[in-house]
């Protein structure tokens, strides 16, 4: 009788501990999708199976150590084989494993079924930022880290979303099945958002599929989960889930912006306009490699400031930014930046930090190279 009470108290205590661990963020999150709840359920089931096995095995062990100690004159049994016992200790783990594998496989099959999606987003990993492209919608953009340098260097207090904040999150509608097509432009990255229970490798030359259907509007944060170089810890994932009508309005606005950018290609831009735009593009995209003042990190990332060979070769400069340099970390920006951004950033690089060449590169020049 008393033993039952002790056991019941122990179980309630452990269950309380589990809730506590969840609230403190020690445990895996339950998340906001059907799949994430399944995954959390599996995780807890397997965890408790392990706890029970551990409790049984260690109880028997400590009981035997105590009960059959030598000072009480215990004699070790001396036998070599015992087929029945061997069959038992082989069959029991086998059954436990099969029992765990059945629900786990069912969940995995569900996770892998990316068919019949309402919306498709291409997710491309870059060193070191994510690029999102709404398939068939003409909307695509980079998502850059916005944590200020001072917080990273420790001269300023870190805020709650330190290293988990971006300029433009991935925006998704709730209650819709979204297919995510993952790939990479350079090395292997991995797109991971714990609250969605999605973690998928983004591999250059391959397209991996994942999907999610978010139940609650909100902001969900994650990180790149595959060591991908110097700024691996500086390319977070932020997902902003909103109601379908809000999402539609957002998408329409983004399409308008894209159209406005396209019309900007045809007009003539002034140097100050290009410099302003170029500085923004440079700061969010190029500075992680070529450094904020253009000084680079030789020998890997060349300096742009006072780079004579580069400043004398405008054609080469344009070609490098548009087409990248194969076999090096320098990416091609023809698919990810528009003509205005490319023209602006090149103009900026040729006139900033005392590079004063006076060159003005018009977006129309770049456009001609983007769509030959």
């Amino acid at each position: 009788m008393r033993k039952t009470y002790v056991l019941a108290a122990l179980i309630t205590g452990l269950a309380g501990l589990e809730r506590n661990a969840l609230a403190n963020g020690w445990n895996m999150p339950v998340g906001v999708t059907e799949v994430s709840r399944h995954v959390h359920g599996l995780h807890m089931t397997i965890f408790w199976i392990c706890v029970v096995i551990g409790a049984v095995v260690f109880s028997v062990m400590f009981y035997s150590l105590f009960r059959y100690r030598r000072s009480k004159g215990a004699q070790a049994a001396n036998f070599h084989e015992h087929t029945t016992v061997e069959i038992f200790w082989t069959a029991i783990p086998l059954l436990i494993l099969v029992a765990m594998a059945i629900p786990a496989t069912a969940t995995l099959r569900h996770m892998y079924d990316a068919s019949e999606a309402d919306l498709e987003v291409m997710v491309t990993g870059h060193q070191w930022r994510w690029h999102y492209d709404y398939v068939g919608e003409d909307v695509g953009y980079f998502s850059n880290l916005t944590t200020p340098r001072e917080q990273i260097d420790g001269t300023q207090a870190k805020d709650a979303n330190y290293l988990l904040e971006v300029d433009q999150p991935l925006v998704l509608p709730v209650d819709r099945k979204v297919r995510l097509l993952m790939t990479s432009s350079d090395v292997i990255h991995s797109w991971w958002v714990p609250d969605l229970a999605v973690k998928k490798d983004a591999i250059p030359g391959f397209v991996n599929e994942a999907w999610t259907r978010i139940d609650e509007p909100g902001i969900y944060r994650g990180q790149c989960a595959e060591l991908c170089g110097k700024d691996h810890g500086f390319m977070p994932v932020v997902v902003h889930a909103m109601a379908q009508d809000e999402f539609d309005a957002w998408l329409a606005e983004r399409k308008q912006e894209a159209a406005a950018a396209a019309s900007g290609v045809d007009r003539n831009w002034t140097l100050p306009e290009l410099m302003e735009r170029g500085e923004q593009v440079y700061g969010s995209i190029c500075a992680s490699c070529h450094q904020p003042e253009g000084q680079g990190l030789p020998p890997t990332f060349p300096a742009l400031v006072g780079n004579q060979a580069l400043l004398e070769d405008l054609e080469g400069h344009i070609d490098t930014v548009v087409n990248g340099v194969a076999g090096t970390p320098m990416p091609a920006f023809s698919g990810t930046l528009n003509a205005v951004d490319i023209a602006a950033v090149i103009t900026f690089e040729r006139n900033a930090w005392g590079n004063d060449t006076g060159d003005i590169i018009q977006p129309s020049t770049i456009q001609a190279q983007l769509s030959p």
Partner: protein
Amino acid sequence: MWGVVKSVLAAFFGVQKERQRQHDFSEGKPVAFIMTGIVLAVALVIAILLVATLASR
């Protein structure tokens, strides 16, 4: 023949009686065990595939 099959299945499971093991290692040819092992391994793979396709329908 049945004895060989039983020994191979015991090896798959990982538990064998010492007496049987002594017997297997002193009598019979290794070739019989190897061939039976290959045939049963293929059968096991087919059985698992079958269960998997049935379960995932």
